[in-house]
């Protein structure tokens, strides 16, 4: 039985659009009709607004690109479909790390299907810039990082290509917290928002380290888009960038080879931890039986090995399915996959707060504000920054 699938997504840039076209071809091969519903812009904000109006008017799409706690918010409005029968048939429980699977369930039932995993705690480096400054290899600890940064600054290059927007301020901050305090501390402080962790010595040290990085950032950083900062590293004008692995897409598109022209490493001190950003599709409750069948086919296809491989090769991320063959992927993706599997076992796998994977939007927005304010205003002391952060974390 064939049906129509309408998929709301915001993957409209080159590599992403190609990935979606792959999914469309697979669904059409199964005899379903694909209705594309792409809403570009705003990092998904525009798509979210459109989705709200569609759902409120009782005309939900088959699936929509929704991730993190937003899945729970939609599920609590009682508009999502139950995917347990597909999940059981396809054995999702054994294919997904538990912390990832939990995010896709509402009251124990699957309501969303994951597409990919991005690692957020990466440090990207330009081989040429590092060589020019006389830095051997990527720094593994914060001490090594600051020693290297000093050399780079002396060589007249930008040490850290930063983008001063609150999401990127926080991306850097969460990598610092992870590197300074470890995965357990990260989880307590930024995911559970535990007041004791937020006002601890470790948090103080994290904020101090975070502020120290600012001395190595060029004055044009505020407001700069992330890909323009990546471009500075690509052009060897800057040496390092803290950024998730979507940056790799920019390097590769510029004809740079991983491991040779640019280097990837976990952010200093965070080699055995992993902040994940999982894109997913929430499936909406439908009335039409044909459409329901098409919907479960869509869910099964997205989690299937074929789609996971094709999609992630295009997108620069890695498959969310554990134990996939990785031989077609590059070295950075292989490292990411290895660490994903390892950290999933030892509890080092934690959700990224900056990318909306961990906490509700209200609190997330508030702590992002506090961190950005601390970053951009040097007059705020570390103690006050910590106080503001703890206060923001209490936002409901």
């Amino acid at each position, binding site marked *: 039985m064939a049906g129509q699938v309408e998929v709301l997504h915001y993957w409209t840039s080159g590599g992403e659009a190609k990935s979606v076209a792959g999914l469309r071809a697979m669904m059409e091969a199964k005899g379903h009709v694909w209705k594309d519903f792409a809403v570009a812009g705003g990092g998904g904000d525009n798509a979210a607004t459109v989705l709200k109006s569609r759902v409120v008017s009782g005309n939900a799409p088959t699936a929509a690109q929704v991730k993190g706690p*937003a899945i729970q918010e939609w599920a609590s*409005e009682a508009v999502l479909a139950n995917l347990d029968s597909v999940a059981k048939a396809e054995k999702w429980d054994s294919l997904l790390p538990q912390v990832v699977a939990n995010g896709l369930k509402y009251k124990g039932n699957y309501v969303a299907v994951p597409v990919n995993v991005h690692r957020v705690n990466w440090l990207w480096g330009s081989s040429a810039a590092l060589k020019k400054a006389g830095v051997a290899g990527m720094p593994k600890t914060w001490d090594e990082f600051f020693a290297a940064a000093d050399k780079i600054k002396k060589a007249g290059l930008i040490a850290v290509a930063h983008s001063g927007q609150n999401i990127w301020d926080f991306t850097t901050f969460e990598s610092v917290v992870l590197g300074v305090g470890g995965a357990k501390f990260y989880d307590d402080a930024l995911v559970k928002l535990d007041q004791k962790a937020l006002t601890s010595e470790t948090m103080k040290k994290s904020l101090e380290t975070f502020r120290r990085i600012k001395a190595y950032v060029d*004055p*044009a950083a*505020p407001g700069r888009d992330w890909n323009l900062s990546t471009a500075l590293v690509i052009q060897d004008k800057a040496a390092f960038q803290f950024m998730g692995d979507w940056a790799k897409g920019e390097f590769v598109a510029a004809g740079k080879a991983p491991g040779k022209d640019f280097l990837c490493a976990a952010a200093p001190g965070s080699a055995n931890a992993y902040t994940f950003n999982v894109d997913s599709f929430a499936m909406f409750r439908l009335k039409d039986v044909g459409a329901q069948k098409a919907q479960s086919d869509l869910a099964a296809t997205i989690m299937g090995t074929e789609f996971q491989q094709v999609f992630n090769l295009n997108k620069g991320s890695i498959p969310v399915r554990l134990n996939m063959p990785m031989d077609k992927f590059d070295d950075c993706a292989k490292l990411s996959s290895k660490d994903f599997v390892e950290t999933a076992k030892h509890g080092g796998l934690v959700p990224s707060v900056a990318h909306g994977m961990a906490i509700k939007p*209200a609190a997330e927005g508030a702590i992002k504000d506090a961190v950005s304010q601390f970053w*951009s*205003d040097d007059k705020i002391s570390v103690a006050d920054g910590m106080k503001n952060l703890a206060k923001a974390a209490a936002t409901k």
Partner: protein
Amino acid sequence: MSRSFESLLPKLVVAPAFVLGFAFIYGLMVWNGVLSVTASRMLPNYDEFVGLAQYEKLFEMDRWWVALKNLGIFSLLYVGGALVLGLVLAILLDQKVRAEGFLRTVYLYPMALSFIVTGTAWKWILNPSLGIEKLMHDLGWTDFHFDWLVQSDTAIYCVVIAGIWQSAGFAMALFLAGLRGIDDSIIKAAQMDGASLPRIYWRIILPVLRPVVFSTILVLSHLSIKSFDLVMALTAGGPGYATDVPATFMYVMSFTRGQIGLGAASATMMLATVAAVVVPYLYSELRAKPHDR
């Protein structure tokens, strides 16, 4: 029969616009007001009323106070700056200069641009490593320092600069029209009495321009309270949230943070601010000329 139809016709013609205006302006205002006393988060929620809790929360937020302070700074400097600069330009242009039509167009053109264009252009001009500072460094003046845009305590003044650049020409056009409306004979009479030119402007022309000044202030101040696109394009509220204004605050809370109730509360506060400017003006205007009606 036909007389009653004639008296009915204007009402009938105006009715659709009235109904639409009523539904989509006042109706939505009321809807917003209702939302602001609910616990609405991601979607509107009419089951749970929380009274003024959203307003309490609003006024406890640092970010809201920053937005209000910025609105104060921006409104005062933007309205004042555009007014003064517009008046000066108008007076200078009124001196029967050559190519006045061309100059007038030059100054008026920024008004034809959208605030998005203005914001983006000024973002590049004021950016220390792209714009003025870089230009001065390239010209050899390496001590030159102008990084207001990237400092959290000065960034709001960059918004003011861009805003004045955009609107001064508009104020100029209004003043120029006002100046042209002044009867030459008054000025001639004053000159005969031996009044100096500055004195003529200060004592005669400016008082005559009073209504123009008020309309200009009214138009500019409601633009400043609503200002959203300029800030979004120029700084996106940054660095941090240092240049947030109530409109950007409302947008962020309602549409990206899933706090529709809080966003609605801030929108109501903005409405109250606009009303505080407009209502007294309308009241005085309508009361002053009852014979016109």
